[in-house]
């Protein structure tokens, strides 16, 4: 029975590798290219039509069709229901449709993806009634709300808070689950629920009043960052070594940028246009991508059946990501010429990370096959 289960999960992993991962990579590459152009980086003349869509749809590609698909795959693998893969399949396809110019169809398909993803999370809650699963469901609902507003062609000031909320609530839920290993101080849960209630209220208010909504949104991000810095296990696991410490470093750096983004979100809402890039990218690159870099070494083996050999090299793209983000964000105050340099560094960090993952997969294979061979040699030795 177990053998059968493993066979099934290997077939599933092959399907993910062949169908979903390419879609994820297209969204990522196009989204990053679009982001570079927005930041003023001159790319080799690409006159293709898809490229214009990549620039226009940077946020949609990065949040909905890249992150949304990755998170959808992750959750589908966890619930072990083949139908759950409908969500990432739809969001992955939505990215391709968007780049092909079918903008409206892509938006509708993303809405369908979010609806399917909500259903998957209802199943998760039914299986385990807990605060963190309820929060995962809330994250899915935030994505649905954002995609609904996107279909309705609402202003981005109304859509973006919901989209980010999808990522923020999903990450908060996963961290909340981990904080159960820490002794919880009196009132800690209530403090978190208060912050998250404020966060959801902020999303809703942003649709009517970006000024007040943005202020609340920023305050909720700062509140969440403080809560995570105080209660997350990362403060403990950073004293471990190897992969555990690396993951903790990714988390703690992410919480730092989460707080910075919150402050910038407040400033932007009050008219400080120079803070807008910080509000958006301290959150997306500093917080969300830092989580991606931290968790890829454990998630990739689970979803794609690729084993990685962890090593110090993982710190190189991480340092590049955070260093180039700092350059990018201070450029708005010191020298705008640095903006493109910082953004190019952000993209380079992602490329370096991909290269590190590939190298560590090869390193694992080299070690595994070598030890398997020497094991065989030992076994056949007289």
């Amino acid at each position, binding site marked *: 029975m177990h053998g059968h289960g493993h066979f099934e999960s290997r077939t599933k992993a092959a399907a993910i590798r062949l169908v979903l991962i390419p879609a994820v990579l297209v969204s990522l590459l196009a989204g990053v290219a679009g982001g570079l152009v927005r930041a003023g980086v001159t790319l080799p003349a690409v006159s293709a039509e898809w490229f214009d869509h990549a620039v226009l749809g940077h946020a949609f590609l990065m949040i909905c069709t890249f992150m949304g698909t990755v998170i959808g795959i992750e959750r589908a693998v966890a619930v072990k229901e083949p139908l759950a893969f409908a969500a990432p399949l739809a969001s992955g396809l939505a990215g391709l449709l968007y780049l092909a110019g079918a903008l409206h169809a892509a938006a509708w398909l993303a809405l369908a993806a979010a609806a399917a993803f909500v259903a998957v999370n209802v199943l998760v809650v039914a299986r385990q009634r807990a605060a963190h699963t309820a929060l995962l469901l809330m994250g899915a609902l935030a994505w649905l709300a954002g995609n609904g507003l996107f279909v309705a062609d609402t202003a981005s000031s109304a859509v973006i808070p919901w989209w980010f909320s999808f990522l923020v609530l999903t990450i908060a839920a996963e961290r909340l689950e981990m904080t159960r290993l820490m002794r919880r101080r009196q009132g800690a849960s209530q403090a978190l629920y208060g912050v998250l209630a404020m966060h959801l209220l902020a999303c809703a208010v942003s649709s009517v009043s970006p000024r007040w909504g943005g202020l609340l949104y920023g305050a909720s991000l700062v509140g969440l960052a403080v809560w995570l810095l105080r209660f997350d296990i990362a403060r403990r696991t950073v004293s471990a070594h190897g992969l555990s410490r690396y993951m903790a470093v990714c988390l703690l750096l992410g919480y730092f940028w989460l707080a910075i983004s919150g402050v910038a979100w407040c400033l932007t809402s009050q008219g400080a246009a120079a803070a807008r890039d910080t509000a958006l990218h301290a959150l997306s690159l500093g917080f969300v991508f830092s989580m991606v870099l931290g968790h890829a070494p454990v998630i990739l083996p*689970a979803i794609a059946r690729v084993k990685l050999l962890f090593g110090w090299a993982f710190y190189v793209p991480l340092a590049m990501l955070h260093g180039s983000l700092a350059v990018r964000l201070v450029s708005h105050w010191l020298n705008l010429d640095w903006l493109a340099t910082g953004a190019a560094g952000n993209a380079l960090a992602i490329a370096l990370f991909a290269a590190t993952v590939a190298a560590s997969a090869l390193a694992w294979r080299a070690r595994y096959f070598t030890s398997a061979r020497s094991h065989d040699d030992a076994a056949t030795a007289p």
Partner: protein
Amino acid sequence: MTAAKTTPAYPYEGPQAMRGPVEEALQRVVDPEVAMTIVDVGLVYGVSVTDERLHVLLTMTSAACPVTDLIVEEVETELERIAPPAMRVDVELVWEPAWSSDRMSPRAKAFMGW
């Protein structure tokens, strides 16, 4: 981390000779996210060993954890290394009773600052 020499945090049924090797095998499975072994986190609910079967009851802290299959496989791999050839390794995932921090070992609690 070295293997704990204190009483295992889970019920064990079976030959005493297998008890140590099983404990050590389970202690080799580490959840990198929390930097602790599955035994210290309290994910092992019980072990029973007969001549033909090594049965482990295992839980996870979350039903939404995509890494579950990998951890189960790692437990199987570690146990297969210590089990006699005729013994079938059977790792069963259970959700009842739900995991709580009460199940953490004293060492795990110390690491997390309790």
